[in-house]
């Protein structure tokens, strides 16, 4: 039961095509995250769904109805902007009621909805303030509140946390997760380039690259079975090690991929000897950079503290079951079922 469907959607700005043949079907109530490198077209795709940009070709449907020609306000969607885009001259209450007023709802109904949203987000005591008198986190809530009052079928977020400091970002992330639980029928589409946000919030992640959909899947699918070299490198932190040359050839692949957490490090014995070049200590983990003999630079993740000195000879052993192999075109070579 899909709410949002895109069929062969293309977007051109002038002569530059920034989205190519996007096909997507998003289920009702799903939390979808668009990720991808900067400039890959995430915001553009979101704005196409919102109706803020024209669809050059292809079709967009919401709940089965074609939406290409429907005005943004009539699509049953709400959007939270990166800069919040609150109306600076209106109070919080007016910010939240403005859209309902445009929809010609009765005063009583507007008041009911605004107060309900305010209660849900715990911003009742802020209703009379102007945006200027709010903190960043409070503004963010008001922006979300403004979207909630519209009672949308689809909720769009464009990097809503990127203007918040790190601690607040975590809190707000949890709140957004809670919000989506409370609105089980509302489809959420969320744009970010923060992996943690994507992995923690998403039911499904859509990875975009240069205007193409690279892969759609649950966070764990993407992590465990990346459909391309690009996804493999993009999902997971620190990045997967990509090894080419003899080693890969021996595995029958053009590229051999192994995540830093899937390599065991030993000072005594292992498959790949090498020399430590650098260690990055994060407290909970340590990233050990190793120059492996005849193979190249490899990043290894070691749990907890690891006081190994640069220059030390070490041995690395990959977890073969967790390794990925890719052909010359970057496609995964599927392991024969054991």
């Amino acid at each position, binding site marked *: 039961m899909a709410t949002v469907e895109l069929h062969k959607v293309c977007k051109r700005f002038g002569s530059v095509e920034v989205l190519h043949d996007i096909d997507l079907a998003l289920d009702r109530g799903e939390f979808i995250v668009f990720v991808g490198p900067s400039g890959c077209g995430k915001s553009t795709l979101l704005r196409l769904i*919102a109706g*803020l940009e024209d669809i050059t070709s292809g079709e967009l449907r919401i709940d089965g109805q074609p939406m290409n020609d429907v*005005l*943004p*306000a*009539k699509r049953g*969607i*709400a*959007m939270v*902007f*990166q*800069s919040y*885009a*609150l*109306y*600076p*001259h209106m109070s919080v209450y007016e910010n939240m009621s*403005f*859209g309902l007023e*445009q*929809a010609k709802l009765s005063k009583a109904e507007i008041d009911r909805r605004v107060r309900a949203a305010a209660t849900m987000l715990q911003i009742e005591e802020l209703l009379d303030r102007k945006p200027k008198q709010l903190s960043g986190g409070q503004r963010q809530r008001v922006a979300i509140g*403004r979207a909630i009052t*519209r009672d949308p079928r689809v909720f769009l977020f464009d990097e809503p946390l990127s203007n918040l400091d790190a601690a607040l970002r975590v809190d707000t992330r949890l709140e957004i997760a809670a919000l989506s639980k409370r609105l089980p029928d509302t489809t959420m589409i969320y744009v970010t380039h923060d992996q943690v946000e994507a992995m923690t919030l998403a039911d499904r992640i859509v990875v975009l690259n240069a205007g193409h959909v690279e892969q759609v899947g649950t966070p764990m699918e993407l992590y465990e079975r990346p459909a391309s070299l690009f996804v493999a490198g993009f999902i997971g932190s620190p990045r997967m090690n990509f090894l080419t040359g003899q080693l890969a050839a021996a595995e029958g692949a053009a590229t051999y991929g192994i995540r830093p957490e899937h390599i065991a490090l030993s000072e005594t014995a292992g498959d790949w000897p090498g020399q430590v070049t650098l260690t990055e200590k994060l407290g909970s983990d340590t990233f050990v950079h190793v120059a492996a003999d005849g193979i190249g630079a490899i990043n290894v993740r070691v749990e907890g503290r690891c006081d190994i000195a640069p220059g030390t000879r070490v041995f690395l052993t990959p977890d073969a079951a967790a390794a990925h192999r890719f052909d010359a075109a970057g496609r995964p070579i599927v392991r024969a079922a054991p």
Partner: protein
Amino acid sequence: MRFATLRTLGFYALVLVIVVQAVFPFYYAILTSLEDGQALFEVNYFPATLNLANYRAMLTEGVFGRQILNSVFVASVVVVISLALAVSAAFALSRIRFRGRGLLLLTILSVSMFPQIAVLSGLFEVIRAMGLFNSLWSLVFSYMIFTLPFTVWVLTTFMRNLPVEIEEAAIMDGASPVTIIRRVFLPLMWPAMVTTGLLAFIHAWNEFLFALTFLSTDSQRTVPVAIALISGRSEFEIPWGNIMAASVIVTLPLVALVLIFQRKIVSGLTAGAVKG
């Protein structure tokens, strides 16, 4: 040390010269306006008498009071109409992409460089055809030629710098373009509107050529023309005291406005010119 003191002294001397040259003529006009009869013809640098006879003469005899009202009417109506037209045009020019937008802006800008004399004969014909000759509406109408390009230009620049996302939020909220202008942009634009409105007012208040040409009777004239046309029976009977009193009357409000809104005016002038 000595050199530094000398430099400071020189600097303040320069400041003094600048201030005195700027202020003195107006100061002297006030001085003259307070003199009557023989006192007028003795050069003095400081107030000798304090005689309001000139002001009384200007404001009670003749039509000067009426002429001030004419000026107020024309300038105010010009401001209101040009702001209304300019806000709606600026919205289109700053927020909507359409073919020919750049060319249109260029054309509007070039109208502001028109010499007024170039349209004078054609405009004279238009105004006569519309039956507006010797009506204050002829000025309201013709002043659009210089207030509109300027206000459109400044407001377009200003609106362009308002965040796009606010407008998009309003679109998502279902606001029509008119609602967006009225409810979202207008409240955010009042600083720019005050500035441009003020400059348009001053410009309209001071205009001379059209006012001289399109109005023919004393009771219809605006103050610049009225002052220019004050004359005596002969070269030696020019009532300088009256002229200076009238000048002070029409200038004081402007000077007050300019001093109060100094910052806004400066920013408006530079927005109109430098950022072009």
